[in-house]
């Protein structure tokens, strides 16, 4: 089955990919994808926490709204879109 990966949809519910491990670090967290062997930096503790709890929110936008001041939301959405693109998070 070919998976649809083209579009990131902030109104959809997402979750951390089960093959991803997060390691807390002073700058936020390191994320490692055991499938693609890719490593990436989650560059704030808030982003790390949000990614970890993503599936408990009805949508990515709701998760962002719940913890990020309005002015910073676009940056967080960009970060999450990029994590979706590299399969660190995926639609539920």
């Amino acid at each position, binding site marked *: 089955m070919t998976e649809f990966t083209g579009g990131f949809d902030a109104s959809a519910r997402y979750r951390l990919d089960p093959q991803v*491990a997060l*390691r*807390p*670090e*002073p*700058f936020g967290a*390191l*994320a*490692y994808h*055991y499938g*693609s*062997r*890719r*490593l*990436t*930096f*989650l*560059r*704030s503790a808030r*982003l790390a926490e949000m990614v970890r709890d993503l599936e408990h929110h009805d949508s990515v936008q709701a998760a962002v709204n719940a913890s990020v001041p309005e002015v*910073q939301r676009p*940056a*967080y959405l*960009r*970060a999450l879109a*990029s*994590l979706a*693109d*590299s399969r*660190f998070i995926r639609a539920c």
Partner: protein
Amino acid sequence: MPVSTGPAGPGTAEPGSGLTDQLKAGLDAPICLTWEITYGCNLACIHCLSSSGRRDRRELTTSEAQAVIDELHDLQVFYVNIGGGEPTIRSDFYDLVDYAVGRGVGVKFSTNGSTITGERARRLAGADYVDVQISIDGADAATNDAVRGEGSYAVARRAMDHLADAGFGPFKISVVVTRQNTGQLDAFEALAAAYGAQLRLTRLRPSGRGADSWARLHPTQAQQVDLYHWLLDRPDVLTGDSFFHLSALGEALPGLNLCGAGRVVCLIDPIGDVYACPFVLHPEFRAGSVRDPGGFARVWRQSELFLELRQPASAGACASCGSYDACQGGCMAAKFFTGLPLDGPDPECVKGLGEVLLGQRAGTAPSPGPGHSVPVRLRSRLRDSTR
């Protein structure tokens, strides 16, 4: 390992940005850990950075090695690069690989290919979280064997054939870039493509036996410029971030572009000694031992050497150079083993500043020591099973 510094913002990882500074100040555990599990090797490559050959009777036992893996698991080290020596000549090698994977620590191991039989390749193809990296240093037997020894090219190619036949998937072909093979980069790329493999290029260091061969093996300045442009055009070629000194030529190469020694990387040697990076096996860069009380975690977090390496470094003689932010002064190991001051230019500084110093300081390089430079013979049982 592909590391993306960009996407998981907010922010970017430009030099001097918060992330780069935080990486320089060290992480709670290494990102990239190299573990050489034996000094034994059936080859005697003239650039071997660990001067490997015969086993050391003090090498970690199986249970000690398992205890190291337990620690890596507790520290959430996601994967470990296992090398040597030739790691697969340890009779417990695959048991340790299985143990690591079972503890959630992925394994990438480097091998000269001599023990990768068809049967072994099939078993590896069935393993999750195990990556295999076959070393060659020439795109033909003559170039390769001049560095790695007679017959070693054919052995490596046979291992690649076995992995491809077994459907292992994208194994890695690892090449140390030398004056003799810089002209073969396209051939290496074609070879990797033919196998569906990933090409990995790393920098020659004057470490171990490389101290004696570096002067005639390291790329010329013109070759460095060619290599830089070749790599810029091919961001998918793996480099272990080892060519960051070339970033002084212009646009930065992909990767972290900083010396990670003791900050984000380190080395555990076969007897459990912990060094700042794989290229500085010298008492001056020994931080401690996994056999010390507190184990590896204590060495990583509290050793005097590592804490010092995480302090802001002085640009020294490079302070007035406009490229310092790009190249960070280059590689500590390359400077150390060529006798250059650590707070000055890399011996392969693309501005030629290192060459000037090398000329002035001839004969001052520290000895890497004799190491373990007598190759072991593979047992006949092993030889038989590879036929």
